[in-house]
């Protein structure tokens, strides 16, 4: 279906050219006159400042080059000039929809560097908050996907109505809705009150009812089937080779979930299943998110049932002034968007010598062009929506 794009020796690289008209005619020897349309960086459906330069033959996409860097603030250079603790609030701003799980990934990396242990209650709390973040992110994505498909905000507002309840829980626990800055090296910052745990438990119990209503609204919808099935097909072998991870990879049928492979944190204590798709198209990616939300609900109910009492912070852990011994560590978690990794290299000083974030959103875009070839421009918007990128993480 997606034949490799022929080489375009004659088409001048658009990036060198100054920012001319967003639409210009381009000639290329295979397809005759192409219409080169630049979608973004200010485009209502590219989820932030992301730009796609698509060469169109009529409606069909012949070439598609993503352009990044509009939100680049060199987060890694900042992290290398501040202390380990001071980088924690900055990790909230990486993937601003899932600050709790990004915090955990950074804390995991520093703990691996320090060889720091974490008490049981903190581990349970981390699993609970990571799974709640997964539900928040997936409901966000599913809402925005249907905005790209053309509904007038209805599914998005239903999804946001549910997401709002989770975010209020984050706010009452950590103090801020999306910038939680909640994990520390060796545990968590604030111990949730029993009322908070009770409220979270009731919220989890009636979340599946929302999912059922959402599926009744959309999953069987004939227009939705026509617009997403068979669109943006991803071949499993190419996906693994291109380093694509997370629900996008599992939608192509590859069984690779870091919660099961690495079993980091206390994930080995919970039994949950990993859904897999067979066709690897946009519909599978959408359904994968819905099924993963149901699995997260299962994990959360088990976690709430047997969360132990006890300290939330390792008594030996220091608050500030960490000076880890020289060495390096790479820790990774199964973030809602894919494998989120932190690579830290310390030379004994208060600041990390090298601080690197492995951005799942950026690497999942590697095969965006292969997925969009041959489809129309309306489909490319849907395919981009189903890959679920956040520009804060793509551009760092």
């Amino acid at each position: 279906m997606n034949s490799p794009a022929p080489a375009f020796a004659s088409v001048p690289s658009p990036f060198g050219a100054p920012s001319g008209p967003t639409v210009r005619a381009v000639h290329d020897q295979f397809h005759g006159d192409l219409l080169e349309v630049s979608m973004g960086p200010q485009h209502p459906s590219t989820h932030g400042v992301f730009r796609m330069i698509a060469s169109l033959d009529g409606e069909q996409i012949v070439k598609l080059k993503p352009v990044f860097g509009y939100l680049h603030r060199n987060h890694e250079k900042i992290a290398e000039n501040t202390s380990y603790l001071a980088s924690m609030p900055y990790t909230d701003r990486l993937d601003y929809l899932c600050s709790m799980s990004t915090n955990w990934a950074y804390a995991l990396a520093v703990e691996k560097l320090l060889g720091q242990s974490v008490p049981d209650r903190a581990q349970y709390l981390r699993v609970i908050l990571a799974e709640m973040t997964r539900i928040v992110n997936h409901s966000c994505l599913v809402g925005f996907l249907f905005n790209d498909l053309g509904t007038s905000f209805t599914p998005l507002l239903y999804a946001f109505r549910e997401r709002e309840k989770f975010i209020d829980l984050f706010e009452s626990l950590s103090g801020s809705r999306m910038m939680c800055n909640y994990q520390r090296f060796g545990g968590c910052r604030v111990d949730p009150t029993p009322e908070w745990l009770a409220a979270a438990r009731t919220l989890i119990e009636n979340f599946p009812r929302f999912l059922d209503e959402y599926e009744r609204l959309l999953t069987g919808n004939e227009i939705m089937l026509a617009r997403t099935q068979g669109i943006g097909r991803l071949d499993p072998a190419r996906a693994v080779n291109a380093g694509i991870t997370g629900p996008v990879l599992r939608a192509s049928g590859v069984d690779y979930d870091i919660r099961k492979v690495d079993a980091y944190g206390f994930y080995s204590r919970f039994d949950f299943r990993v859904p897999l798709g067979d066709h690897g198209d946009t519909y599978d990616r959408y359904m994968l998110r819905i099924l993963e939300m149901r699995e997260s609900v299962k994990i959360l109910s088990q976690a709430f049932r047997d969360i132990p009492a006890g300290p939330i912070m390792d008594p030996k852990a220091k608050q500030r002034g960490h000076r880890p011994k020289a060495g390096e560590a790479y820790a990774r978690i199964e973030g809602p968007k894919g494998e989120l990794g932190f690579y830290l290299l310390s030379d004994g000083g208060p600041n990390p010598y090298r601080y690197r974030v492995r951005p799942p959103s950026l690497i999942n875009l590697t095969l965006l062009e292969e997925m969009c070839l041959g489809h129309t421009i309306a489909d490319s918007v849907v395919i981009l929506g189903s890959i679920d990128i956040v520009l804060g993480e793509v551009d760092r």
Partner: protein
Amino acid sequence: MSAAADSFLERAPLELRDWAVQLLPAPLQWISHHLITIVAVLAVFGLFFAFTTVAERKLLGRLQNRLGPNRAGLPKFSILPWHIRHKLFGLSQPFADAVKALTKEDIVPAAADKVLHFLAPVVVVGFSLMTFAVLPFGRNLIPVELDAALLYFFAAGSASELAIFMAGWSSRNKYSLLAAMRALAQLISYELPLILSVVPVVLVASTLSTSAIVQAQGAWTFGVLPHWFVFTPWGFAGFIIFLISALAESNRSPFDLPEAESELVAGHLTEYSGFKYALFFMAEYFGLTALSGLGVTVFLGGWQAPCELLYWVPSYLWFMGKLILMIMLFIWVRGTLLRLRIDQLTRLSWQFLVPLALLNVGNAAFWALTAQWSGPLQLVRWAVSAAIVIVPFLVIGRSLSAGYAPRTYRYAP
């Protein structure tokens, strides 16, 4: 229809007009007679347009669990003392929108074709207003009694395509030309099922004049079941096809491709701003009201009362009630459905709606021929008619949605 039906309210608008006309000298009477009708239609449907925009935003809001606009109240210096506390539920929102549209700067692109750029909104509003001339609002409340009324309606409606092309071409902008081409493809491919879905009614009522069609739907069985065409198998199928085509003709929800913000930003309206954009916006709503008015007239029995007992209610209220219900249905569909891609949209029309509409005409012919069957034959007639509708729907439906089905998912071992 018993003569007692003409209560005072029923005849009031007509008598008012006649009283006003005979005030004037003889030569002016013909002109003023029609002038008053025109002014009345413009006033009623102008306000109807204004409050449809508000209703749409409030209804969509309620569909999405939020309040619609409720901030715009009457200006502060209004005489109503309680206004300060009471915000009138945002009902004065349309007037605020109108003022905004008027005062916004009207930018015309330098390279634009000035004449066509100005003419496009004029043509589209003119033609969509002309379609109101043949809709029977009440028992004898019809602006122009035309013998070929339906044909007139579709003739006026088809000219809006011309205006969309002029708008798309004159803006000298690749996006708007691409979008105008798409919009034209959509309008042309849905004009056929629209007209074909009305042909069965013409066949059964054997007339093209709208008021005669409404008369044909006058009777009730057992006083309660009205003889509206929508309650016959072919009528119901025709109504559904008419609804889908009307959605496409007025560029609304599942087919709002030209203004698909996720692709071509604002389609052929990209280069319009200020009052010209408001004119296009108004024309779209007039088109929507006219099409739903036609739907009410042809399928839902125009100004006929649903049952004998309610016959005393003035007829134009029935027409307005059904019109409002139809518009709420359109808004409800807009709040729920996704947008179709251009090739799926045209395939739906040519491979699904047109064949079904043609079969529906055959079905209506069968219905008309077997009009005098009675007793048990009546049931056979209904069964055959229903079969002619359902069987092709299932067959063509399955071929259309081949390969698309909700899937079941496996889990990792």
